[in-house]
Every structure is written in C-alpha cells, then in structure tokens.
C-alpha cells in the first residue's frame, strides 16, 4: 500500500498552465560524494539526468612542468602526490620506467619488497574505496571497519619509511632502506587478520537489500565502450574484460606469483564492487607468497649518484589500484627529464561518465561516481 502525496486524482494530467523545464544543478566543486574537488554540471529533467558535464582541474599543479625542473630522483616525492591513496604504486611505476630507460636490474630482495609494498597499498586503496562507496550509499559502519584495517597497513608503512600517506619509499634502483626488524612477521599476521575481515564486509553489504538495490544494474558500462574510452583497472574488469597488467605484461617479479584476475559480467556498479572485493583477496594471496619467499640481500642496486639516462624514451604502464598507470619519460641525457607525461587511470576512467550516467536519477550518479573510484590528485595532476 503506497500513500499518494499528490493532491491530483490518479491519472489526471498536469495542468497545461504549469510550465515544466529542464534545469541545471551544480554538483560540487565541494561535495562529499565527489571525493575531492570535482564539479559536475547536471542537466536534469525532474530527478532524471539528461546530460552531465565534468569540470576538472581544481587540483591542478602541473606536475609535468615541475618534473622538468627536477632531477630524476627529486621527482619521486611528486609522484606520491598524484594518486595519494595508492602512492606506493606511483613510486613503483615511475621508478620502473626510469630503470627501463637506463637498463638497471635491481636486487632480488628489493623486488620482493616492492611487490609487498605495492600489494599492501592495493588493499589499503580498495579499503578506502569500499568504505567511502558504502558511505555514499548510506552505510556508515563499513567505513569504520575498513579504516580499522587500513590503519594496520599505515602502521606497517610508518615503521618502514616513516610516512603514512606520501611514502617516497622507492628509489631508482631499489628501495630507500631495508625492512625494519620483525616486519615480515607483522605483515604475515596482518594477512591472516585481514582475510576473514573481507568476508565480514561482504556479510554487511553483499546481501544487504538496500545495497543490492542501489548497485545492481546501475551505471552499465559495456565492454566495447569501455575499451573505446581507454578505461582500465577494476572498471574495465567489471565490464568483463580479463585484463590485468600484472598478469599480461608482468613487471617487477609478478610472473612468480599465483593469483586470479576477477572479472564481472554486466559492467554495473555491483560488478565493480565484486571485482574490487575479490582483488583484495587476491592481493593478500600475492602478499602471502611474497612474504614466504623473500630472500636476504641488498635492497639498492649500484646506480650512479647523478642519474642521467641515455637519450631515448620509454612508455611504461603498470597496474595501479585504479587501473593502467603509464609514465612516458623522454630523456635527453641530462640529469633532468626532458618530458614526463603521466597517463592517469582516473583521467581516462572519468571521461566515460557522460556516457554511463544519462537516464539515471541523481542519487544513482553518486553510486556511479563512487564505483569509478577517482582520485583527484592524479586526475588533475
């Protein structure tokens, strides 16, 4: 039984005297659901979205210009500030790009440390995503649980490099320092602690009627469209493309680890949620193997004091928590990079929003935007 709020009799048309028109609403720049400073201009017909225009650049610092005036090593702290939720993966992507340009091989132990750090970071990043996504849809408690687990990862990082968010831990040729005493045991304990927690989140959300209603069938991104837009990461996998750069173009030592690449079928918000949940489990699996196999040894290769890559260019892409993170580095054999172009996954992922939002209600825009998982730091650079 539904209560009818309208004073009009059922079936009666709106009187011709009342004018109806489409109108514009600004969502952002300051809006809790945009997770940063992003402005979306919505053209609405009642509550239904007709057109959406994103305006980006509020956090623009011109990272690429700054890099041209820094040495190769000095660029590393700036990469932290691109995708600040997944900073380790940015360090990794940049360092490998420069190493490929110079042809450096790095010590075994450093490779393992890098994989451990990158995967811990992936779990942390997905935890932030899960918490805020659930919060956007009105589930408070998940956020608190997610941040509880993330705290453990932050503590591990703090012990290792002193920072909790902007690590600058990796160096060209390895990592800045060896792991602290007892790190491996603590990390193993964390893996065992975290695994059942992921089941807990699923228990809170996966059978929650409101959550299902808000995500299933919402914001469908078809496979062909996703590829055409240059979408990558969990968003692409949610649309059913079996593609993970760690698997398909293994960098570092990823070819040594066994893990699965989860994919969705429909490309809706629900599939993206499922993909990310499963990715956390797979990351824990990689972590477990890496922590068991980590050898002793050096953590930094012998690199020249002044890094001066030979004349040339490289495009290296790695799988960051948000997708394909590419670094295009051009060197003119001077101590400073001639040009660095960052292919930020959030940038390409957001560009498809106008395609998948049309026809949905305003509340669904929040869900769709949340499921894309943008970080404005790397979007605006």
């Amino acid at each position, binding site marked *: 039984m539904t209560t009818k709020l309208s004073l009009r009799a059922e079936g009666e048309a709106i009187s011709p005297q009342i004018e109806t028109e489409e109108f514009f609403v600004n969502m952002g720049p300051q809006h809790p659901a945009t997770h940063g400073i992003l402005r979306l201009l919505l053209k609405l017909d009642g509550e239904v979205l007709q057109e959406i225009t994103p305006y980006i650049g509020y956090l*623009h610092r011109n990272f690429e210009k700054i890099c041209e005036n820094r040495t190769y090593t000095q660029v590393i702290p700036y990469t932290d500030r691109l995708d600040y939720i997944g900073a380790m993966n940015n360090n990794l992507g940049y360092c490998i790009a420069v190493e490929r340009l110079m042809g450096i091989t790095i010590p075994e132990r450093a490779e393992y440390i890098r994989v451990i750090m990158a995967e811990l970071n992936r779990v942390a990043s997905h935890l932030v995503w899960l918490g805020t996504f659930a919060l956007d849809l009105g589930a408070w408690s998940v956020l608190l649980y997610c941040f509880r687990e993330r705290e453990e990862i932050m503590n591990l990082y703090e012990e290792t490099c002193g920072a909790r968010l902007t690590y600058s831990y990796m160096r060209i040729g390895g990592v800045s320092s060896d792991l602290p005493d007892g790190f491996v045991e603590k990390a193993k304990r964390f893996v065992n602690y975290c695994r059942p927690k992921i089941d807990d989140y699923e228990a809170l959300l996966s059978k929650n009627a409101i959550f299902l209603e808000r995500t299933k069938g919402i914001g469908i991104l078809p496979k062909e469209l996703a590829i055409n837009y*240059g979408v990558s990461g969990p968003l692409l996998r949610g649309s059913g493309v079996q*593609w993970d750069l760690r698997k398909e173009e293994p960098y570092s030592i990823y070819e040594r680890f066994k893990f699965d690449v989860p994919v969705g079928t429909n490309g809706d918000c629900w599939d993206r949620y499922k993909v990310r949940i499963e990715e956390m489990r797979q990351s824990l699996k990689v972590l477990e193997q890496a922590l068991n196999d980590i050898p002793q040894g050096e953590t930094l290769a012998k690199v020249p004091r002044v890094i001066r890559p030979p004349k040339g260019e490289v495009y290296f892409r790695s799988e960051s928590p948000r997708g394909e993170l*590419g670094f295009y580095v051009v060197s003119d054999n001077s101590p400073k990079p001639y*040009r660095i*172009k960052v292919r930020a996954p959030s940038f390409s992922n957001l560009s*498809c929003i106008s395609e998948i939002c049309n026809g949905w209600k305003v509340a669904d825009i929040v869900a769709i935007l949340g499921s894309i998982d943008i970080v404005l730091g790397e979007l605006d650079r």
Partner: protein
Amino acid sequence: MVNKLREKFPGIIFEEDESKAILIPPDNILEACRFLKDTEGLEFDYLMNLAVVDWKDTLEMVYHLFSFTLRHKTTLKVRLDRQNPVLDSVSGIWRGADWFEREAYDMFGVKFNNHPDMRRILLSDEWVGYPLRKDYIDPELEVLPER
C-alpha cells in the same frame, strides 16, 4: 606494421624513428588511424596514451596504441609546426582521445579539427599561454639570482 601502412597508402611517406615509432604526416593522421583500427590483423582498439613533446623547433604528438584482441602495441608520431599546430581529431575513432586532445590543447596549444568540445580542460578558460611549452614563462614566477 609500417609496411602495411606503406602498402595501403602508396603516395605517403612513412618513416620509422630510432625508437621504432611510425612517423605519420600531419595531413594523414585520421586515415592512418582509421586503417590501424579497422584492418584485420592490426585492430588497434585501445589508445593507451597521447602525449605531446616540445622539441623547440617542432611539436611532436605521440600516440601509444594497443590492441586488446591481438595483444600488440605500436607508437605513432606526428610532427607539427610549432607556430600553427593544427591536426585532425581522432576522438571519432577512440573516444578516449577526447580528453587527451583537450589536454594537448590546454598545455601545448595544439588545435584539433572536428573535435566535439575544444576547450581547455585543466586550466581555466581565461588562462593565457600554453604552460608545457619550453619557452613558457610563468608571469607569477620569481626567478632567484644564480648563486
């Protein structure tokens, strides 16, 4: 790759540079890209990245292409006149190029024909100049004397 392009477009000169990238004349970018995307055996359906490099005498556009069906990659380069850089937009082929091209316009002043929405993307519309060009001088920058 380059041989297939030469076969298809006999009148056009395609060169390879030292990094194995294919150099494409500015006037032919659209047909070359369409050919690379739609031909069986090439099928470049994914534009990974679009970068611009300012070489002080020319502006160089760099297209990094990838094919999901065949899992191979290639790089295209187009050298543009620095004074008046104009190029056909490839956003009709890869929709993802839309924002990349807007960024190229924003940072380097490359103008694209037939682009659906040719505006600045990261900077405000009132911004003067193209910051990533090598000769750009930031009006607010204070240059400290050399020590």
